[in-house]
């Protein structure tokens, strides 16, 4: 993943490693110092490495998820398309024949290694009769010259062997599986409304030509044309010319643009008469790359919180390490070592840690990726119940491993280098005598000036960002401007007052920005959420850190008790209070990860709570959509679906017809967009009502009035909110009700101007109508569709409103059985929405699981800090034991201390997440309009808090035990 980033990352990696090597080679003292520290302090070295291993693991795991999706979609594309790289389709058999003749000249082209013309249609297929009958309402049927197919594109065409004779058919194993059919069985095909039987000559694997376009049955040339003529209707099979590029299944795609241009040139005038050249493999591969990148980015986004937690752990451990070495550092400075050399020594040491951690992190990342892919594979399988699904196959590219290694190394290296600069600023005497840090040293005047200037710059940037409702800038710049103002303010006002006011201001803005600027999340950028989470958590922790004393007053009765518990509590709270930086870093680690986890949990429950509303939006009062084969249309659907054996169960029918259209001229969408143009009769607005997100008020006061106007007047259309979108959220919609667009029939070139009368709240009921599953729906009146698209408009679907109490499941099964000859497929709309929700829920859980890795970092970090604290406080513990503190009180003090910090961080994160999600909820017009209450999943949050708290306690159990075992005489080091 992210192969475009590899050169930059590898360049930075090389620069960092070379710089470190140069420092080590040129400075023998620095080198010796760094390397001996590592070997002398192996436990500490292990702790630092642990801190950054998980960060790299999360990065590599995220990239692997992207790789896997990319690979899996590619494999599916290769398997389904085989050697087919381009497809030339014509609207009529005659034009198809002309196209085939024109393209024959390209057979000798070096870029092309196969051209094959086939005819294709859709038909229902059944095996057997009576109760044991098995049917497939929508199978692709192809007539093809088997000899030509065998030679098509070399050896991998996927359709070889002898041509089936009259009354025979070859089927692929997918269709055979659906029908439980094997060679020798007799199948009934419903072609163009007439039934015909054929014996299965053989079953072939579903790949290449034998899997193309969902095809499942293969006849000898002439079969489909003859069937269409016998049926006497106007429907005819589609003529396709398939092209295979030189280079095989995977390599052929490289020449796709070149070959497509040659094909268009060869087709000449036919391209303007409805003959089209598609590059299905290139499109699928591009979609695969995009989907892989998007999913990988999503995991990287979720993982970024854990990565930040890892960085903080690294800072914390390194600062503690430096504190322990303070007397040594002081001595080194005293004997003349410059600060720069100290920094270089730390950098060499840190680079070794970073290299080891990045290497181990890559290995751990492989494990993380594997687990995520295993879980995701199950979710993807459930996504695909209706559309063939996607088999996720674990895949790792060297690019991802290199990128992950480089990112992990660079993050750890930069963290260590920056931390080193801070810790090298020791006061020599204080360091030698191991006195507490000076703390609160005044910043030099030039830095105050620079920081104030930076505040002005950030302030200006904030002004612009907020005015434009930019997501990241609206949160980041005001926070940076306020922070950069602090050095000046602390010269004028008390430090605590400044930081309290600053953190309150940033926190208030973080929580309230969405209310002041409601469109701040409209760009759909995940970075906005990362910045928001970081800004909120950092400011809240700063606020708490500055005012811990106030919070601790709540515990005064506990602390003042002259009991072992009281003394333990007193100690437990004294240390976090005295070590504000360390405590703050742990609080941020916990707060940040818990914030995101709880936010995801709450948002998940908000989404879940909206399932009924989503069903209502998606269904518009209809329960089932039936799609039938335009080649064998259901005549009089309104009469046949309401009457007969369905009487009393179906209350209303809204017939739909569809055509392929092309939309241009929409604001913000410069390229033409393919769309499924759906024609509906006025019945659609009478039998049910699809809610609109936006409507053109001049057409009526409510949604129904607008629908009636659209279904009566061909000048108006209704769009869904995803037309022309490529992945961003609904916020990226660039068109509004009242905008105009141009709708073109690509077959005839006939274009008409339309006005957007409304934007659908949910297009599920219109998605993929008939054969046209390639674009978002555009709904217009049936009359308007017929007038513009003529023969291209096919009656292909209907929406059914059920009588109260009628079972949609039973009805759907009955409908499919009754109208098998029409290839009728009945889709239960509620079931469709619920499947989506179930898959979303699983996906949320997967994200939560992935994010929980961040909690592991937080908990491990707390454990690491407590291990260090025990070492650091040996002497104090010795004194306490000498004064008469029981061992159990010492242990309890350490456990209470870690619990106090962990709980504070957990509650901080959880509280912020609930407030943030509530504000998001309050600012969402759609949710507010629905009138649903804000659902807080208290049980899930309580479990999360409890599990995290218990895990934190467990992580500090060992250090607490070690502290309790300290022998006073040894700890005090009272030696003669």
């Amino acid at each position: 993943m992210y192969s475009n980033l590899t050169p930059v990352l590898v360049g930075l990696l090389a620069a960092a490693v070379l710089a470190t090597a140069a420092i080590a080679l040129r400075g023998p003292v620095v080198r010796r110092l760094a390397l001996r520290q590592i070997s002398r302090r192996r436990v500490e070295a292990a702790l630092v490495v642990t801190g950054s291993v998980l960060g790299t693991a999360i990065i590599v795991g995220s990239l692997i998820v992207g790789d896997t999706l990319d690979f899996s979609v590619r494999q599916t594309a290769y398997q389904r398309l085989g050697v087919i790289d381009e497809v030339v389709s014509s609207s009529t058999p005659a034009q198809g024949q002309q196209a085939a003749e024109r393209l024959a000249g390209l057979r000798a082209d070096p870029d092309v290694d196969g051209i094959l013309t086939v005819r294709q249609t859709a038909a229902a297929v059944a095996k057997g009769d009576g109760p044991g009958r098995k049917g497939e309402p929508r199978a692709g049927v192809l007539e093809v010259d088997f000899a030509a197919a065998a030679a098509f594109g070399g050896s991998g065409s996927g359709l070889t062997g002898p041509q089936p004779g009259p009354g025979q058919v070859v089927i692929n194993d997918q269709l055979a599986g659906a029908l439980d059919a094997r060679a020798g069985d007799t199948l009934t095909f419903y072609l163009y409304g007439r039934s015909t039987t054929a014996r299965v000559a053989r079953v072939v694997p579903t790949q290449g030509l034998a899997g193309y376009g969902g095809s499942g049955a293969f006849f000898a040339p002439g079969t489909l044309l003859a069937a269409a003529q016998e049926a006497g209707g106007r429907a005819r099979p589609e003529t396709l010319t398939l092209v295979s590029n030189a280079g095989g299944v995977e390599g052929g795609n490289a020449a796709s643009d070149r070959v497509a241009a040659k094909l268009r040139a060869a087709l000449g005038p036919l391209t303007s008469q409805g003959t089209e050249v598609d590059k299905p493999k290139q499109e699928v591969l591009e979609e695969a790359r995009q989907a892989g990148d998007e999913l990988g980015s999503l995991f990287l986004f979720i993982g970024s919180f854990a990565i930040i937690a890892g960085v903080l752990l690294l800072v914390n451990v390194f600062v503690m390490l430096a504190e322990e070495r303070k007397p040594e550092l002081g001595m080194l400075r005293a004997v003349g070592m410059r600060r720069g050399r100290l920094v270089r020594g730390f950098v060499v040491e840190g680079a070794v840690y970073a290299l080891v951690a990045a290497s181990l992190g890559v290995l751990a990342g492989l494990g993380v990726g594997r687990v995520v892919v295993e879980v995701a594979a199950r979710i993807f399988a459930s996504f695909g119940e209706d559309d063939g699904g996607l088999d996720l196959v674990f895949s790792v590219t060297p690019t991802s491993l290199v990128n992950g290694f480089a990112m992990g190394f660079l993050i750890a290296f930069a963290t260590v280098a920056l931390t080193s600069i801070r810790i090298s600023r020791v006061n020599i005497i204080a360091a030698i005598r191991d006195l507490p840090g000076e703390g609160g040293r005044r910043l030099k005047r030039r830095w105050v000036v620079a920081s104030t200037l930076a505040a002005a710059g950030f302030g200006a940037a904030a002004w612009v960002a907020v005015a434009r409702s930019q997501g990241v800038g609206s949160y980041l710049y005001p926070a940076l401007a306020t922070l950069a103002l602090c050095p000046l303010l602390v010269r004028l006002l008390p430090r605590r007052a400044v930081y309290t006011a600053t953190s309150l201001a940033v926190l208030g803005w973080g929580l309230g920005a969405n209310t002041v600027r409601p469109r701040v999340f409209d760009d759909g950028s995940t970075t906005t959420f990362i910045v928001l989470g970081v800004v909120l958590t950092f400011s809240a922790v700063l606020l708490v850190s500055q005012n811990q004393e106030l919070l601790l007053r709540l515990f005064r009765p506990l602390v003042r008790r002259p009991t072992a518990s009281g003394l333990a509590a007193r100690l437990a709270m004294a240390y976090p209070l005295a070590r504000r930086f360390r405590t703050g870093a742990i609080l941020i680690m916990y707060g940040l990860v818990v914030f995101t986890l709880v936010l995801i949990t709450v948002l998940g429950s908000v989404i879940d709570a909206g399932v009924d509303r989503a069903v209502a939006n998606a269904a518009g009062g209809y329960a089932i959509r039936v799609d039938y084969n335009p080649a064998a249309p259901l005549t009089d659907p309104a009469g046949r679906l309401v009457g007969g054996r369905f009487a009393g169960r179906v209350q209303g029918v809204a017939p739909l017809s569809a055509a392929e259209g092309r939309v241009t001229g929409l604001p913000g969408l410069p390229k033409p967009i393919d769309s499924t143009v759906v024609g509906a009769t006025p019945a659609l607005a009478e039998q049910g009502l699809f809610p609109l997100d936006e409507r053109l008020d001049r057409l009526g006061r409510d949604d129904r009035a607008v629908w009636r106007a659209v279904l009566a007047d061909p000048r108006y259309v209704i769009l869904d909110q995803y037309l022309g979108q490529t992945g961003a959220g609904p916020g990226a919609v660039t068109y509004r009700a009242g905008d105009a667009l141009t709708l073109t029939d690509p077959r005839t070139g006939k274009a008409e101007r339309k006005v957007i009368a409304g934007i659908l709240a949910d297009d599920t009921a219109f998605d993929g109508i008939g054969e046209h599953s390639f674009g978002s729906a555009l709904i217009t009146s049936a009359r308007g569709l017929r007038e513009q698209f003529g023969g291209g408009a096919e009656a292909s679907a209907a929406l059914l409103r059920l009588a109260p109490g009628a079972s949609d499941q039973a009805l759907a099964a009955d409908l499919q059985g009754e109208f098998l000859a029409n290839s009728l497929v009945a889709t239960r709309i509620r079931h469709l929405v619920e499947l989506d929700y179930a898959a979303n829920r699983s996906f949320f859980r997967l994200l939560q699981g992935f994010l929980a890795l961040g909690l592991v970092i937080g908990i491990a970090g707390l454990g690491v800090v407590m291990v260090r604290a025990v070492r650091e406080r040996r002497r104090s513990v010795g004194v306490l034991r000498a004064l008469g503190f029981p061992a159990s009180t010492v242990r309890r003090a350490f456990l209470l201390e870690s619990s106090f910090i962990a709980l504070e961080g957990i509650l901080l994160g959880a509280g912020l997440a609930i407030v943030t999600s509530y504000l998001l909820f309050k600012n969402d017009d759609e949710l507010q309009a629905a009138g649903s209450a804000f659902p807080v999943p208290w049980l899930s949050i309580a479990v999360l808090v409890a599990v995290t708290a218990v895990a934190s306690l467990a992580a500090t159990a060992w250090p607490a035990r070690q502290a309790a075992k300290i022998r006073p005489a040894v700890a005090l080091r009272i030696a003669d």
Partner: protein
Amino acid sequence: MDHTDDHQPGPLLVAEQVRKVYRTGGVEVEALSGLDLAVRRGELVAVMGPSGSGKTTLLNCLSGLDDVDGGRVLVEGRDLFAMSDARRTSHRARTMGFIFQSFNLIPVFTAAENVELPLLLNGVPAKPARATAVRMLERVGLGHRVAHRPGELSGGEQQRVTIARALAARPAIVWADEPTGNLDTQMADQVIGLLHELNRQEGQTIVLVTHDPGVGGSAGRLVRMRDGRLVGDEQRRPARIGV
């Protein structure tokens, strides 16, 4: 827990045949070799001897901070090493106070909080404990430093806080290990003067380990050690040192 006014017959502390061996990498070093010592109530005993003679080991073993390899130690008639660690710890909290060379105050607590620790350990409620701590700090001349943390105090001030802490619960015996080792001469004189004053005025039993002949010479009883054995035990008229 006021032990200083008790006038029970017999010595406060009795050590009989105390033996302590350090084992490092297979090498055994006998730090105390069957040592006997008795300390009466109200005594100020100075323990002197060259480095490695076992002075600090003696203090650690007699106070129960460290285990012994032989012999027994009775404080107020109770054998320290016949008790469990928990009982010994509790006994220590009631009967002993400690003054260390490097002060060893709890860095995250204020002076008053450090001083009140032994009182709280002995179950004194928070308010009277704080009042006593403040009084003790005033007694050692630090009434104005009550709310300061150790990092904000000079070495001499820290040691005076340590003394206040050691005496706050009115222990039977105070152990002081090189209490002036980290102080300049003037500050050292003040600290030793304070200990003498407490011993003289309040009858506080004090055992102090020192290198300093001046400090040792000022004590009422001087015990000399060499190679883990007592080689001298002199009763002397204490010098008149005061703050």
